[in-house]
């Protein structure tokens, strides 16, 4: 089992504090949902774990299996088992999904070791069948001219192939119609298992109709203000974020 611990984390963009003291522990096998209104710092949390260069950690720490990852480069964190499914994944013109994934897997191998191409394609096609993705998909350039749904599916496929310890799903549901949302959620559900921990960042409860989390956290103004099980998401949906804000004021 692996464990990802976020300890009293403070994050800023420039001088502006965004995350102001978040603590959260995720074990493999668990699915945590982080909800909250726009500007609460949810996406920042996901990106800073992955090591995005725009953000500065101003306090606290992030541990993967007991070791701080703050000094690690984004690619080192990735190879250590952290995967970020991007809200807005970049296009890589001229590089097919198949070649991109191949490079990503090759990067995880020891120097001098070569990825076995036929075994790779076999596994790729298995994963694609498993996620119900058309095989022609992998010949397309990464994210180039993709619809919102295709981009998200491409992220899920990458996660399936890379097999990280932790998947950080940044607003995986944004910009998706209900059919695309179902497909993506089905993919995530299929990958769910004892070897994978997930952090689902979402604005809307509706994603949680399809991916049922073990834990739900509500973020507001850079802090986790409420944690609970899946019923919290339903309560939040019924009462709206104002309910959390008002509760905070009362407290």
């Amino acid at each position: 089992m692996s464990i990802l611990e976020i300890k009293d984390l403070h994050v800023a963009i420039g001088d502006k504090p965004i995350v102001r003291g978040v603590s959260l522990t995720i074990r493999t096998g668990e699915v945590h949902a982080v909800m909250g209104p726009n500007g609460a710092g949810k996406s920042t949390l996901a990106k800073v774990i992955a090591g995005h260069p725009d953000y500065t950690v101003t306090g606290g720490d992030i541990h993967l299996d007991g070791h701080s990852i703050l000094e690690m480069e984004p690619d080192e964190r990735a190879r250590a088992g952290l995967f970020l499914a991007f809200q807005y994944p970049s296009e890589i013109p001229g590089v097919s999904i198949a070649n991109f994934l191949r490079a990503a897997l090759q990067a995880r191998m020891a120097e001098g070791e070569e990825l076995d191409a036929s075994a790779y394609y076999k596994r790729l096609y298995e994963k694609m069948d498993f996620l119900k993705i058309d095989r022609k998909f992998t010949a397309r350039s990464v994210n180039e001219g993709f619809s919102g749904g295709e981009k998200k599916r491409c992220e899920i496929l990458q996660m399936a192939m890379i097999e990280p310890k932790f998947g950080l799903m940044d607003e995986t549901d944004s910009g998706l119609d209900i059919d695309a949302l179902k497909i993506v959620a089905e993919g995530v559900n299929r990958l769910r298992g004892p070897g994978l921990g997930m952090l689902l960042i979402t604005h809307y409860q509706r994603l949680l109709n399809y991916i049922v989390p073990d834990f739900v956290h509500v973020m507001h103004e850079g802090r986790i203000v409420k944690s609970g099980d899946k019923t919290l998401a339903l309560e939040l949906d019924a009462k709206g974020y104002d309910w959390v804000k008002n509760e905070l004021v009362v407290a």
Partner: protein
Amino acid sequence: MPDAQTIAIDPPAAENPAVGIDQSSGNFSYEMKYEFDAGSGLSERTVDYISSVKKEAPWLREFRMNALKTFDSKPLPTHWATRDLENIDFNKIRYYLASGGKPKRTWDEVPDDIKRTFERLGIPEQERKFLAGVEAQFDSEAAYSNIKDTVAKQGVIFVNSTEALREHPEIFRKWFGKVIPTGDNKFSALNSAVFSGGSFIYVPPGIKVSHPLQAYFRINAENFGQFERTLIIVDEGSEVTYMEGCTAPKFSTSTLHSAVVELVALKGAKIQYITVQNWANNVFNLVTKRGLAHEEAEIKWIDCNIGSRLTMKYPGVVLKGRKARGEVLSIALANDGQHQDTGAKMIHAADETTSNIIAKSISVGQGRSTYRGVVHIPRHLKGCKNNTECDALLINSNSRTDTYPAITVRGDRHAVQHEASVSKVSEEQIFYMKQRGLTEGQAMSLSVNGFVNELARQFPMEYSVELKRLIDLEMEGSVG
């Protein structure tokens, strides 16, 4: 300067390979003792020396002398080109270095030091795998030259220019200097004065050479100038693919490479000329390349420029016969401290001629790339077509790219298209790839390979693989 007739023959050079070398980049050199050395600097004596060593006919000696005068009289083209050209010290360059003897027909006969160089560069292996013939030039002269029997029996001639002048003067002289006259530019004049080595190919009518012929140009010596001269004549209805590769070790002083390449495709002939060069970044690479396409002939230049301090090269096609086709596909990668000034020239001189230019440049760090193109279609012609695409990729904000397309189209019976684009590898794109586990170097390398991918797919497989390998090396090296 020693006289050619009285030069002492030195014993073979002792084993002295450089240590700590990067095999893959060609950055290594061996201590050589040269039997023939024209010394440093350029004068009539230098030209005389080269001509004497080669035992040339009077007409050629005169040709060289006239070329020297033209070279001396022409200013450097700094009114449009970079002033970095002024840093070439023509007096310090060594214009001719050779070990003597004819090029060998088997690798066993090639002297060990030279053989080792080409083995490290993988040439004998490539020859076995997929080539119809190989010419391996070491500094001024070919060390090895061989053509497969089956190809030779078809009447195909593949020798170096020195041999060609001796053995096939009638074909050589007919076309030599006709596509690129001495006075074309200062560097074509320089080459005409001191040229040595390079390939001569003649393909008789109706012969399709099944496998590529390859030349490999290796600079080994410091302060050296390599001036090969290549002339390829493909007779009616014939086809040939020629590939050249170039490397040199990195010295602290500058090295000059100034070739002239002339192609003649007679009626219905096809020539594909592929260059993958990986010069060390102290090399001034100033090359003139042009082809003459007769009726329904096709000339295609595939030009990959990696490395060098300054490359100036604009392969061209003169479309002389009706329905002739010309094509330039070029890729230039300018890394820190490098300037790739490349492009293409298409001179339409007959009706219904077609030309296509696709140029992709990549600028990394402080690297600078420039595209210069000329497309000329005069008024009296009809039904000519040109397509020009120039795409530039910038990796980090210090890099620079310029495009100077000169498209002159007169008359209204032609179709011309021009597209240009500049794109950048963004921080976000790099972060995305790093998040998938790629190092920064691997991420940039993948972006660059993606950028050239569509074009590289049109190359013969072995060369697109080689190109990818060179890009990977170059990009890995560009990350601190």
